[in-house]
């Protein structure tokens, strides 16, 4: 179907705005560049959402081909319901992040001249130009309709985010993060490219329609290979365990609105790729595909949240929690694939809708939390939670937004995290109906893990909100923190309201969720499997909840209680006094519970998984060992898991890289010779074929 005039218009405005934004960043001076770039990026994201809304409303897919010199390298785009859903997701975080970036910058940092902010300086012009290009690349990836287009923009997306991670390249932390990221992104790219080329082997131009038609003829072994390679590649982009190692390094290193985009959106592009290839192009497969995805999801969810729990770096904590949420999303995708392979179309649609719902919700609250952490970073100059405290009194609005995000991510009703996790739980419960006991039992175990993850997330976010924002400031920098500029608060406020609305009014998301998988093989097109109305229903006659009514009840009860107290004539006397501390003389921040202490019980419970290493040095008085001069206690948690997985890989790669270095001499002449040789070889090859 040719695209409508409006869709082309919106997409065109989107692309032009993004490119203009990038240009503005390079052309203008510092302050104006920030303003123009931010506004143009927001406009781009907004028009992307407009195109997506039109595309969803129209149903079906509209295909757009751009002329090109080479037939194989034609850029081809299509806007179907799934692309539209992801385009909306990009806009959901893109718009607030762009608005936020208007006020985010090292110039306004209080007390942080040389802190983490100075390093990844957003004031560095190329970095500011790259953000809109990153947004554009992500939008074009989900719109891509041929192997070439997809791979091209995939690579642009990876490269753009790579440059944002390393920033100016003058901090060892960022450089190391960048190395991890580049290495894993390219390994992933190789896997994806292999998968897509394998799938497109029999087609003419590698268009997605052609692959879709040819997929049926593919040999089973080839299909499995395509799926596994795709899972490897997209899984590493999405950050599932054990392919997540780059994520907690790269996400915190980027500027915070970019972290929001990376965690909130880019991970979901990995999920999009998996859905596009596994579900759409290949048309689903045997149950073990879904089972594998489900298992990966379970492991990631648990591993992610356990790592997040013991983290003291606010942004790393959020990054690990993204691993957890991607795990939850993969659980839902896995169930969906399992249902699809058993021919339970209605349930499959429900599970996949739940996955998409959680992806959108995670984009909202994780985007919000990253923006919030950026605000905190700007105000205090640190990411270490042990050096914060008492920020709620200094930055009340940021605190409120962060609290909304924390409550949402802890899956507490009536916010959006709860709504989507409820749907995922219901999908798992429906899985009990699968006639194979092993699969059914797997669903039960996944349900248990999901709940444990939810509980641990609640602990984790009591810590992530409580330690930085509540109690007394632990350092002078935290003491002097000030509320961030209005634009930054606006960006956070937008996402906070999205968290509330998506949770309280689930029917607002219903048009996206029920249409996103329209026309996919093995799914039901009738929305009867689940309903997102005033009452959310998981299938007819099955479980139902109504977040809207729940929120109203909570509000009513919360309002009625003080009223009832006043009527009952209860005392209203209030006196301020010092915190009770058993009568000790002064209260100081040193007495507060720390972030490490807060997580200590769980660290001990899961000691087998964390394997904490501790060293205890006691220096005794020379006269008697009953007198102690000093005690030093150190406890660290080593990422032993990453060591176990990646060390051998590094061991393998190093000699190979050493060999590769032989041809790297740094001499320009030699490189030109290489190019000429490659050209010659290609020409000969073309002739011969």
């Amino acid at each position, binding site marked *: 179907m040719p695209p409508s005039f409006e869709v082309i218009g919106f997409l065109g405005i989107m692309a032009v705005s993004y490119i203009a934004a990038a240009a503005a960043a390079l052309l203008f001076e510092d302050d104006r560049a920030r303003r123009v770039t931010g506004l143009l990026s927001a406009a781009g994201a907004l028009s992307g959402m407009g195109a997506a809304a039109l595309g969803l409303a129209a149903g079906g897919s509209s295909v757009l081909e751009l002329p090109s010199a080479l037939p194989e390298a034609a850029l081809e785009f299509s806007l179907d319901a799934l692309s539209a859903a992801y385009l909306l997701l990009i806009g959901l975080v893109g718009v607030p992040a762009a608005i936020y970036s208007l006020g985010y910058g090292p110039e306004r940092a209080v007390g942080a001249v040389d802190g983490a902010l100075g390093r990844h300086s957003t004031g560095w012009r190329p970095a500011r130009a790259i953000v809109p290009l990153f947004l554009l690349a992500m939008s074009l990836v989900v719109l891509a309709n041929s192997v070439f287009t997809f791979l091209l923009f995939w690579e642009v997306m990876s490269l753009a985010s790579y440059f944002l991670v390393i920033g100016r390249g003058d901090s060892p932390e960022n450089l190391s993060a960048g190395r991890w990221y580049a290495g894993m992104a390219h390994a992933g790219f190789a896997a994806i490219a292999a998968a897509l080329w394998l799938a497109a082997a029999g087609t003419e131009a590698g268009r997605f329609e052609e692959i879709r038609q040819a997929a049926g003829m593919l040999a089973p072994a080839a299909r499995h290979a395509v799926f596994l390679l795709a899972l490897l590649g997209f899984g590493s982009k999405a950050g599932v365990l054990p392919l997540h190692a780059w994520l907690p390094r790269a996400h915190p290193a980027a500027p915070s609105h970019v972290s929001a985009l990376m965690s909130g959106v880019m991970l979901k592009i990995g999920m999009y790729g998996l859905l596009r290839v596994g579900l759409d192009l290949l048309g689903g497969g045997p149950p073990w595909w879904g089972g594998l995805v489900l298992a990966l999801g379970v492991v990631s969810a648990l591993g992610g949240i356990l790592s997040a729990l013991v983290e003291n770096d606010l942004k790393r904590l959020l990054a690990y929690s993204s691993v957890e949420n991607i795990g939850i999303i993969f659980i839902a995708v896995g169930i969906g694939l399992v249902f699809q392979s058993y021919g339970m179309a209605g349930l499959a649609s429900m599970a996949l809708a739940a996955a998409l719902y959680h992806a959108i919700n995670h984009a909202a609250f994780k985007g919000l939390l990253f923006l919030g952490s950026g605000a905190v970073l700007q105000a205090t100059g640190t990411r270490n939670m042990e050096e914060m405290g008492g920020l709620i009194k200094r930055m009340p609005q940021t605190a409120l937004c962060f609290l909304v995000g924390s409550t949402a991510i802890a899956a507490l009703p009536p916010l959006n995290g709860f709504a989507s996790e409820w749907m995922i739980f219901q999908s798992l419960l429906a899985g009990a109906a699968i006639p194979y006991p092993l699969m059914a039992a797997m669903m039960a175990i996944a349900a248990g893990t999901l709940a444990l993850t939810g509980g641990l997330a609640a602990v984790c976010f009591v810590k992530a909100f409580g330690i930085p924002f509540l109690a007394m400031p632990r350092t002078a920098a935290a003491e002097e923190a000030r509320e961030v500029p209005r634009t930054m608060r606006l960006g956070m406020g937008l996402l906070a309201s999205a968290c509330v609305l998506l949770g309280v009014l689930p029917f607002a998301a219903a048009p996206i969720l029920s249409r996103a998988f329209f026309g996919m093989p093995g799914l039901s097109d009738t929305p009867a499997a689940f309903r997102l109305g005033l009452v959310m229903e998981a299938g007819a006659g099955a479980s139902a909840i109504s977040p809207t009514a729940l929120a109203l009840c909570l509000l009513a009860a919360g309002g009625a209680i003080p009223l009832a107290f006043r009527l009952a004539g209860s005392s209203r006397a209030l*006196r301020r006094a010092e915190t009770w501390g058993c009568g000790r003389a002064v209260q100081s921040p040193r007495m507060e519970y720390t972030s490490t202490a807060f997580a200590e019980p769980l660290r001990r419970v899961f000691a087998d998984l964390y394997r904490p290493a501790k060293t205890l040095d006691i220096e005794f008085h020379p006269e008697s060992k009953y007198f102690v001069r000093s005690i030093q206690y150190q406890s660290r948690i080593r990422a032993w898991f990453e060591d176990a997985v990646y060390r051998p890989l590094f061991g393998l790669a190093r000699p190979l890289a050493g060999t590769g270095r032989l041809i790297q001499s740094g001499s320009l002449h030699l490189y030109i010779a290489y190019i000429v040789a490659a050209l010659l070889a290609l020409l000969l090859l073309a002739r011969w074929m």
Partner: protein
Amino acid sequence: MALLFSKMWRTGLVTEDLPSGGDEGLHLARVVEERTRRLLGRSLAIREVDAGSCNGCELEISGLNGPVYDCERFGVRFVASPRHADMLLVTGPVTRNMELPLRKTWEATPDPKLVVAVGECARTCGVFAGSYAVVGGVDRVIPVDLFVPGCPPEPLDILRGILKALDRLPRR
């Protein structure tokens, strides 16, 4: 387990009645407001503060929680935080180091509140009088509502003191 419960069954209740009278020795330092008495008369939470006692008084106080004296039957119970408390039960002479904590505890307790000082030391510093380490009786630091004399006073006396402050003693 069967043994435990059969023994419980055979023992039955051992709580002794509170004999009437016997409150002559109790020294009411201030008249407690009517409203406070009414409010706390049926439900009283106590925070115990050891301001420097020899722990003889504590030993007797802990008897109140036991089955024989059972203060809970009067709605009296001990709590951990002065924020939850209605009464401070203070023992011992106030030592220099405990002066500030005692005052802070008093400040931390929400109104309306009572203070009962237990033991000879709490009033006159007893055997510690004149020591360089003590500040003086409890009423040197915070206002006291009632003194319970004795070194140490018996649990029954303490119970009587608490109830007398609330005007809840059984009538003769």
